[in-house]
């Protein structure tokens, strides 16, 4: 039986965290780590009421930083499989299990859940932005993917030990592909469901619009020259 860790990065997710944790704890035979990324709401308290590990960033450092902490935790405690799972209720444990099976059976070093392999109700502006991110990911990192911004991923032991996350913020989603390429890891996309609620829509990107995605693109460009 592999030792599995589900990492849930959470920044002010009090509205959805409890239901996400119940789903994960009930259905996935794994340890759960909530990385409370400097939340100002009751995210930490909600996490503590459940049978999970909780670590807290004293200041908000961003998605990449939270995932980086999860990887460090997994390395220190020698986990065989690491799963990243969003706290906003976008993912289901059923899909996470599909990814875990892919890794467990040795079909790939990294499995990424793609919301675009099946017909999903992703809003059009999201589809366009996603496509542009995929294109940028391909141009910068040479890996073609149908969903470079997916938050549901699974990694085997080799990937856990090799992947180094440098970025602190949302660009981390693309950075995983750079690390896959750099470390010659194999990766497989697995079709997953995407549950879009008004809540999850307001989280990933800036509430005022899609500026976040644009700024990610600019940052990826800048990083090329740094």
């Amino acid at each position, binding site marked *: 039986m592999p030792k599995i860790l589900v990492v849930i990065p959470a920044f002010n997710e009090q509205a959805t965290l409890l239901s996400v944790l119940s789903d994960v704890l009930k259905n996935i035979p794994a340890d759960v780590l909530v990385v409370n990324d400097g939340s100002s709401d009751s995210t930490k308290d909600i996490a503590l*009421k459940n049978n999970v*590990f909780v670590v807290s960033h*004293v*200041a908000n*450092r961003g998605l990449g930083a939270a995932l*980086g902490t999860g990887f460090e935790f997994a390395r220190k405690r020698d986990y065989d499989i690491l799963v990243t799972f969003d706290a906003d209720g976008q993912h289901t444990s059923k899909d996470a299990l599909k990814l875990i099976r892919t890794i467990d059976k040795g079909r790939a070093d990294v499995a990424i859940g793609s919301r675009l392999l099946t017909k999903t109700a992703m809003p059009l502006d999201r589809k366009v932005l996603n496509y542009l991110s995929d294109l940028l990911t391909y141009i910068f990192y040479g890996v073609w993917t149908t969903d470079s911004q997916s938050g549901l991923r699974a990694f085997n032991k080799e990937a856990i030990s090799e992947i180094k996350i440098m970025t602190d913020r949302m660009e981390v989603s693309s950075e995983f592909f750079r690390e896959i390429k750099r470390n010659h890891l194999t990766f497989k996309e697995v079709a997953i469901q995407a549950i879009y609620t008004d809540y999850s829509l307001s989280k990933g990107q800036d509430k005022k619009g899609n500026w976040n995605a644009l700024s990610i693109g600019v940052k990826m460009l*800048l990083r090329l020259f740094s």
Partner: protein
Amino acid sequence: MTLIQLLLSIFLLFALSRVILRFRGGQLSPLEFAFWSILFVAAIFGIFLPEQTSQLAKILGIGRGADLVVYVSIVIIFYLVFRLYIMIENLRHEITEIVRKIALENVIKSKTKK
């Protein structure tokens, strides 16, 4: 001496005095000290010897000395902004490392509810 020459040179001398003070205080490395003092001294020369900058400009194929100064300044400013950007990114990363270290030293495992 024109008024603008006076004002600019007073400001540049002030800037130069800060560079010297920071160097003495240990906030600037010898190399940084050399860079900033050469920059400000060159600017003072440029203010009082505009003909020389014009000659240099002509050699480089630019009409006026003032234009040369503006072009060179913009390039330097852009480069410095870039350096600052990288430096801030590195600082952020270091902050994250510290935050992560503190977080991982305080792992809480709660088992209040199964």
